[in-house]
């Protein structure tokens, strides 16, 4: 049926990712770090897409995570990764717990628009309260320390990469557990038959609310990690177009699986790097055209291409064995 266990290719991919710093040049490592960092918020959006709900407002949690780090650095001089990562995630989760109370009552277009409205309020606040947030200039974020120590410059990039990879690994494990639990299945069931859920004695609102908190936490986690990686955060993190980008990446990679968003995030970062090199003026158009192509020809995303190939491969394999 619907697969909840990691396929072989994912394990191969994991090995490749772990070996990456030893083989690839530094700029590719940077892209991979960024992709791994953004992967979580894309996964967060993908969770809701499985339930048939679109969130055009995940920039809210992304910005909360990033600016928690920004404020902590600016005012408390905090630089410790082991502190900032849980702090940013927690702040985002708290925001999600508050906003989720409201959001759980809505579906469809209203869910998308309400999400959007909340994130835009935060965007407006981040923009206007410039004495706090740096306004359009944003905030600088210095590289974080691990247990007080700053990694030496030669391996700095590599250590941040491994930190992000490790966290991503943890997230993947946690989400697989979540999806295998009754809550994870109810989430999928929500998109198919809410009536049956209510008539089973379970509360659809509760399912959405709990997922919302998890989703928000993941969004905040992404914000923290991206702040570390990029070193500079701006109010645009909460803008609706940023949120739209997350939905796009979820679609690009395929939101029906857990590796999908990761594949999408990596592909997206590479596309963006090349687009900014060859067609910097037309980035939005490039994005739009690719999205159109995917929607019209491959709505399952890149991951379904892999699944189709894998399916055909295993069929041939089985055929060779029995034939």
């Amino acid at each position: 049926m619907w697969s909840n266990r990691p396929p072989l290719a994912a394990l191969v991919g994991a090995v490749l990712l772990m070996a990456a710093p030893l083989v690839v040049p530094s700029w590719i490592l940077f892209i991979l770090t960024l992709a791994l960092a953004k992967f979580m918020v894309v996964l967060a959006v993908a969770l809701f897409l499985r339930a048939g709900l679109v969130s055009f407002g995940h920039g809210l949690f992304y910005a909360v995570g990033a600016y928690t780090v920004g404020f902590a650095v600016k005012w408390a001089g905090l630089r410790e990764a082991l502190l900032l990562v849980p702090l940013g995630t927690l702040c985002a989760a708290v925001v999600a717990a508050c906003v989720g109370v409201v959001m759980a009552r809505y579906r469809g277009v209203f869910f998308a628009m309400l999400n959007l409205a909340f994130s835009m309020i935060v965007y407006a606040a981040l923009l206007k309260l410039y004495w706090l947030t740096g306004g359009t200039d944003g905030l600088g974020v210095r590289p974080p320390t691990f247990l007080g120590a700053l990694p030496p410059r030669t391996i700095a990039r590599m250590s941040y990469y491994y930190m992000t990879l490790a966290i991503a690994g943890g997230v993947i494990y946690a989400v697989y557990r979540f999806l295998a639990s009754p809550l994870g299945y109810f989430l999928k069931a929500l998109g198919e038959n809410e009536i049956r859920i209510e008539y089973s004695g379970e509360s659809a609102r509760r399912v959405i609310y709990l997922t919302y908190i998890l989703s928000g936490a993941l969004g905040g986690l992404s914000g923290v990690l991206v702040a570390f990686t990029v070193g500079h955060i701006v109010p645009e993190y909460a803008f609706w177009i940023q949120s739209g980008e997350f939905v796009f990446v979820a679609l690009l990679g395929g939101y029906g699986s857990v590796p999908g968003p990761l594949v999408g995030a990596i592909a997206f970062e590479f596309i963006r790097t090349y687009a900014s090199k060859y067609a910097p003026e037309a980035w939005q158009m490039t994005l739009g055209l690719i999205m159109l192509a995917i929607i019209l020809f491959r709505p399952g995303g890149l991951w379904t291409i892999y699944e189709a190939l894998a399916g055909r491969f295993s069929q041939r394999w089985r055929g060779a064995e029995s034939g």
Partner: protein
Amino acid sequence: MADTEAILRTIDLTRSFDMVKAADAINVTMGHGELVGIVGANGSGKTTFLNLITGYVKPDHGRILMMGHDCTGLSPRRITKLGIARSFQVPQLYTGLSVRENVLLSLAAASGNSASFWGPLYRRPWLGESGEILDRFGLKSYAERSVAELPEGGRKLLDIALSFALKPRLLLMDEPTSGVSVEDKFQVMDTLVRVLRESDITTIFVEHDMEVVQRYSRRVLVFDNGRVMADGDPISVLADVEVRKAVLGRE
């Protein structure tokens, strides 16, 4: 029948839709273990009655008591938690999941809130129970297959199995044989009634098919214009001329 024994009791249950009285001061009492058939022409109020009892629709006046508890105005979810389960005329299934997963979700929902969210859905006690339920409903061979592969009779049975898995005290079935082919009708009902009798669940089913009602129910309620016009054993009720005119004459 004393109130403590009555599993369901409605008192002056009334509901109108745009000037039409779909339920007109209905007073009905049902005891534990009964097998009741509800008949009536289209628009006679039988579906409204079902909707009122399961909380899908709120009454204008009157009360609903389940084993003495006042259920009036509660949401479908709360009513389900109190022990009334319902199956649907159009089967309400999780179409993207397997047959077994559908049952597992019902079991998860019935197990109480905190238990459902930790640990996997595929856990041993539930796997065993779901296998048992599917077996009793004759769906074991479809267990790992998608819901989409079920034949129409199978979909109906699964829909009822999902409600059954909640271990309700009272099970309401809305037209269990509608959409099922004539050959399969009796097979479906045989399976159903056998399972329900074995589990000692009070059952109410709304039906259009007189033969089904006659064969399987032990008590029949006839609805007409939002009121119960007859209430008794199937043979005498369905033989009554007035009843036949009301139920069959207008169809």
